[in-house]
């Protein structure tokens, strides 16, 4: 039922979502921690920038990424200078785009979880002579586990569901940038509805299972405190 092209696209999509989620947990956790703890004036602007992809259409993001990462854009000049080459039409480019695109879905749950911990446990850790770093890893992170779980699932799922940005900067190259959502679009456009159904139906089932897992694993989401 699934052709080699379908399987290639599925594998690529999972790889993209996996790498993106991993990077986002690494980048997003410090940002979330800072947003949760800071009293700086910059909290508002930074929080707004992180949340931008929720509001902006993917075409806006894709369009600007194409210009920024192109040979005439600042990012493109930098990557060419650094010997990486241009990012559009490459897997690395998709990862960069996806990190921006899925950022709020990872940062916000972790930030909420950190905020919910409050000052108490961290002050208690400090009186027990835990260093800030120790307190972060031994107290804050374990207490924020539901937030991390939500962030991981949402970040992964949102990247799997990415379409507009990939379409605009990907170039539809098999096994490099042709992800499942783009392949489905191709099938539909080419009137290959039977092949589209297999993948599209699979996406619906996948999305449902992911969200179901989220609600089953995190039943105390509202009471977390």
């Amino acid at each position, binding site marked *: 039922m699934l052709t080699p092209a379908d399987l290639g696209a599925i594998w690529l999509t999972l790889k993209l979502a996996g790498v993106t989620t991993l990077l986002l947990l690494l980048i997003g956790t410090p940002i979330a921690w800072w947003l949760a703890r800071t009293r700086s004036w910059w909290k508002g602007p930074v929080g707004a920038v992180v949340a931008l992809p929720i509001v902006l259409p993917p075409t806006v993001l894709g369009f600007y990424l194409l210009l920024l990462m192109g040979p005439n854009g600042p990012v493109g000049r930098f990557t060419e200078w650094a010997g990486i080459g241009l990012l559009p039409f490459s897997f690395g480019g998709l990862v960069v785009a996806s990190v921006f695109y899925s950022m709020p879905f990872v940062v916000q749950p972790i930030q909420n979880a950190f905020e919910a911990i409050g000052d108490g446990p961290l002050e208690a850790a400090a009186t027990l002579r835990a260093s800030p770093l120790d307190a972060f890893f031994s107290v804050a992170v374990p207490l924020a586990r539901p937030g991390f779980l939500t962030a991981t699932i949402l970040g992964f799922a949102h990247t799997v569901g990415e379409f507009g940005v990939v379409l605009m900067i990907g170039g*539809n190259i098999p096994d490099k940038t042709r992800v499942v959502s783009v392949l489905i679009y191709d099938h539909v456009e*080419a009137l290959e509805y039977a092949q589209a159904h297999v993948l599209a139906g699979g996406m619906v089932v996948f999305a449902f299972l992911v969200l179901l897992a989220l609600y089953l694993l995190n039943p105390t989401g509202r009471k977390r405190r």
Partner: protein
Amino acid sequence: MKRIAFVLGLLWSAATLADDVQVAVAANFTAPAKQIAEGFEKETGHKARLSFGATGKFYAQVKNGAPFEVLLSADDSTPARLEAEGAALAGTRFTYATGRLVLWSSKPGYVDDKGGVLKMGGFKHIAIANPKLAPYGAAAVEALTSLKLLDVIQPRFVQGENIAQTHQFIATGNAELGFVALSQVMKDGKVGAGSAWVVPATLHQPIKQDAVILDKGKGKPAAQAWMEYLKGDKAKAMIRSFGYEI
């Protein structure tokens, strides 16, 4: 009461005399269609509402009840198929333009006037429209096959979902060069920016673009008028000025 009736009467007569026609236009024909629509409105008083996109998408939308009354397709097979399936009016089909393929780069002097750049290589990405979906993409593959260069060049393909997106990849410099429609880079009878090689028409099947009145346009004077205007000399002159043959 009389006044309301008068206003309503005015509105009604305006509605019957000057009609709207909903036209679905293939992406490569965007610029000429806008110009033609202006002339059409001036001459007939009807208004043409244009939607631009990929022909394959229009097919799916028409089959699912989209309100389009006329289709200006990027190929000749989609209108024929719609007619065979009863979604378009029989006997209204005609070729409004034959498209020309061009190898184009946004860099001046990059593409030579014989297309030798294809043989020299030296580029990382060459943009084409998805050959499965877009007639210009299929023509590009045919041309490369005729030149016996397909196997060498195919690994460097980046595909736009339609010819407009392909143009965007090249215009932003992300692909060094690529195959687009001559109409997209032609302005006032010559290639506007960058460098180009007009691919000889002998290297690929002619890109015949057909128009057809769809089911929703049945009995609509504005749809009929649009088709007449499109066949007329004024429209033909505009179409030719964008690099199409007719």
